[in-house]
Structure formats: structure tokens, C-alpha cells
């Protein structure tokens, strides 16, 4: 953990409105690109929607929204997703939204599910599922076949999950309100597990600038403890040959590469390629630490480079039962 803040860190922290300790960490990670990185966190991204093919064909919905005056742009690699460049109505209050034709969802969140690659003959577990953006995409890719076990511990957030499952016409989910770390007690043998772990959410600074000031150094440690417990539980849930995707919306290696490195030591997992044609490689050394070299197969996304919120995705396969 970096403790001493440099004059560069103070200067940039003041310029961009961050706590100095955060910028000190970014200087160690991004070096001479730190200024660009911080500038990138101040840019706004167009809202994006994902058409729900369980409810309507993609082009039919596109045409319908364009007739209403929406200006939509395709997103490379995500046939069902569109950037909304202009909208005459609030995206969350149209009739189309209410009848479940689309979900407001970031591309990074969609990519995490694409990397998981769920199929309709599988048992898929979504460990921290609320409010359900990824769960409903999993159901969409499974064409409402097979089964999804979705969990969340929060009483309020699980209501949002249920509401979205209903609105988006998901029919193949079983939702449990519980600590996902206890999921192995249920004796499931999952084909695929998605762990979009609770995190500091640094990657969401472009959407919520209050995060520049709301985090403390202790947050990384506290959340890393939770993430370690969850990833070990996720590995236990998998059958041999099953795959797990671990994702966060954080830049912090303590919440990403260090968690995966810990899991590789504790569980029979190996990292496999995400097959994503973009994104930076995962880090294999940071803050004076070295981690497993296969972490280069993980993917990092930065607002200043990839035009989306900050995100981390790593895909793993279970090697033995």
C-alpha cells in the first residue's frame, strides 16, 4: 500500500478533485499516462441500452425507438446493444422500457456476460446478482432455457433484481437472498459462475465523480477480504471443466489481480483467455508485488483508452472436481 504522497500526487489530486492517496496509487500504476487517465475519468459516455431478444427482435426495437426520435449507434461486437446519442424521452420511463424491450446497461457489464458465454443447457450461478443487468442478459443468451441461480444479500437490492427479472421476462431463474459465500452449502455443480464482486467502484468515477473523494485506503483491504471469500466459494460451486468469470468495476490490483492470484493458489483453477479483441492485459506486477504470469490473460478497460467505464474481467476454468 502506498502511503507517502508526492508533490505530483498533490498537484494532480487538486487539479482533478481526488484524494491524494488515490492519485499516488494511479501514478504508480499508470506512470506518465496518469494525467491522461485522470482526464479520461472526467469524460461523459453516451448511455447504452441492450435490446431484450426475449421480448422483441433487435432491429424491430431499433426501428421502433428511431421512429420515436431516438438516435442510436451500434456497438462493435454487441449486436443487441446501442449507444443512445439522443433521446426525446427519459430512457427509463418509455413504454418500451416498461414492457421489457430493453435494459439500460453498460457495455463493460455486457462484455462480462459475453465472456462467461452461458448456454441454454447449463446451470449458471450469478453470485452477486442485484439489480440484475447481468442476470437478465444471462437469461437472454440462454434463451430462457436451463437454470440460473441468482443470489444477493441485500434486502433492498434483491427487490430490484426481482423487478428486473419480471420486467425482462426471465423465466429460468431461482433467486436466493443469502450471503453468496454460503452458496457451496447448497451442493450445486454449476457449469458457469459469474462473480461480479462488490468493489470500491473506482471505475465508475466517470458516472459518479463523488467516488473521487468517498474512498479510503481501508476500503481496498476490507473489500479484498470479501472478494477472497467469494471467489473461493465460486470455485467450489463449479463442476470440473466449469468456468468462472470474475469481474469488478475497479482499477485497484488489490481487488483484481491479487484476488485471482490468491484463488489460483487456493483452488484448482487456471486462467483462460477471455477472447476479447480489445482491453489491456491484466497486471503481473504492481506496487512492488509480482503475481501469476497467466494474469496477462485477464483484461482491463480504462475510460481514457477504451471509451467505457473502468472494468476488470478474468476467466478461469476448474481443473479438478
Amino acid at each position, binding site marked *: 500500500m502506498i502511503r507517502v504522497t508526492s508533490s505530483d500526487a498533490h498537484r494532480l489530486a487538486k487539479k482533478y478533485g481526488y484524494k491524494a492517496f488515490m492519485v499516488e496509487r494511479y501514478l504508480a500504476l499508470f506512470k506518465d499516462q496518469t494525467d491522461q487517465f485522470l482526464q479520461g475519468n472526467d469524460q461523459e459516455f453516451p448511455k447504452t441500452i441492450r435490446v431484450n431478444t426475449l*421480448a422483441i427482435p433487435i432491429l424491430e426495437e431499433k426501428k421502433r425507438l428511431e421512429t420515436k426520435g431516438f438516435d442510436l449507434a451500434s456497438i462493435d461486437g454487441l449486436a443487441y446493444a446501442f449507444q443512445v446519442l439522443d433521446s426525446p424521452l427519459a430512457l*427509463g*420511463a418509455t*413504454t418500451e422500457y*416498461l*414492457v*421489457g424491450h430493453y435494459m439500460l446497461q453498460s457495455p463493460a457489464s455486457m462484455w462480462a456476460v459475453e465472456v462467461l458465454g452461458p448456454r441454454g443447457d447449463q*446451470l449458471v450461478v450469478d453470485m452477486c446478482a442485484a439489480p440484475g443487468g447481468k442476470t437478465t442478459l444471462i437469461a437472454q443468451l440462454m434463451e430462457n432455457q*436451463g*437454470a440460473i*441461480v441468482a443470489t444477493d444479500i441485500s*434486502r433492498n437490492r*434483491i*427487490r*430490484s433484481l*426481482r*423487478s*428486473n*427479472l*419480471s*420486467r425482462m*421476462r426471465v*423465466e*429460468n*431463474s*431461482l*433467486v*436466493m*437472498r*443469502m450471503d453468496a459465500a454460503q452458496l457451496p452449502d*447448497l*451442493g*450445486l455443480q454449476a457449469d458457469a459462475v459469474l462473480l461480479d464482486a462488490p468493489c470500491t467502484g473506482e471505475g465508475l468515477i466517470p458516472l459518479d465523480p463523488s467516488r473521487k473523494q468517498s474512498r479510503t485506503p481501508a476500503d481496498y483491504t476490507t473489500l479484498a477480504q470479501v472478494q477472497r471469500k467469494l471467489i473461493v466459494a465460486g470455485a467450489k460451486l463449479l463442476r470440473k471443466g466449469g468456468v468462472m468469470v470474475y469481474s469488478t468495476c475497479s482499477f485497484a490490483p488489490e481487488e483484481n489481480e491479487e484476488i485471482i492470484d490468491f484463488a489460483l493458489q487456493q483452488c484448482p483453477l487456471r486462467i483462460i483467455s477471455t477472447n476479447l479483441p480489445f482491453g489491456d492485459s491484466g497486471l503481473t506486477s504492481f506496487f512492488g508485488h509480482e503475481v501469476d504470469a497467466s494474469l496477462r490473460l485477464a483484461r482491463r478497460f480504462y475510460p481514457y483508452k477504451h471509451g467505457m467505464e473502468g472494468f476488470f474481467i478474468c476467466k478461469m476454468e476448474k481443473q479438478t472436481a
Partner: protein
Amino acid sequence: MQNGKTNRLIFGPPSEEETRYIRQGLVAFISEEAVNRLLEKNRLLLGRGRRNEVFIVSSPLWMLYEQVLPRHPYFIGIFLGELRKGELLPSLHVLHYLSSNIKPEVRILTDDKGEQRFLYGHSLASSEFVGKDLSFVKSGPVVVLNAKAEGLGYGHLTKSGGKTQIKNRLDLGWYLRRGR
């Protein structure tokens, strides 16, 4: 759930009597054949709690349900509705299926203005109905659809003093007002 509060449920199959109420509730909106299509290959589960909630569960989900017992799910499959005093109050989750198979006598189409008013929770006046001679429609539960024949919610048609109106019982605007 439709009132937005968490309801802890203990699940089990419905009794024969409860199953009859559930089928009767569906037959009020769709044909016996459409009810059979909805339920074939699936099973009913009743979650008993502060409110009694009915779910339709596919075979893979049923196997999972049996596996997770004695823990009880929060939600499973398709939420069919709430069973209250022997009456099924159908949910928004099943609205699309009911709308697609709705009996003509309980199908009410509304115009764009009516659509917006209904989605804001308002009742509908007869001037907002489209293409229907309501003299043959009985008072009782109806499904309100927009001009594209998409279900917007459930209403109760009343006739009094020569005036016909539809009281809003549950509409998709619930997702914005209570579902977040």
C-alpha cells in the same frame, strides 16, 4: 411483491383447492387451452407468507428447488400472481402471456393518451377505449392493452349511471414507482 415489500416465503405445492382457484383465476382471462399450454411441462409452487405467491416452475428449476431445500427461494420461475382469499391476482410477470392469449370479452384497447394515463396509475374513461362496443362487456376484471396490443396492466371495468370506466388495478408503471 407487487406492493414492493419483502415477503419471506415457505414454498410447497398448492393444495387441490388452491390449484382450482389458480386455474379459475387464469381462465377469467385466457382459454382453458391457453392455461394448459402455460402449465404443461411446468409445475406450480405456492410460496406461503404474509402474502401467498404462486410461481410456475420448469423441470430444471424444480430439480434445483428440491436441491436447495430446506432453504427456501426468494423467487423462482414465473411469478404467476398472488392468491388472496381464493382469488388469483395475476402479476406483471405473466401479463405478456395473458395479453397474447387474452379472451376478447376481457380485452380492452386504449389509445396513446389512455396508455400514458393508465401507466401513471390512472383509471380510464370510455372515451379512451378503442374499437369496442362495451355494451356487451360485463363488469369485472379486464386486461388493458395499447394500440400495439401490448399488455399495459390489469383493470376492473365498472358500469354505473350509464358511465363505463376502468379502474386501474395494476399497471407496468409499477416498475418505476415501486420496483426499483
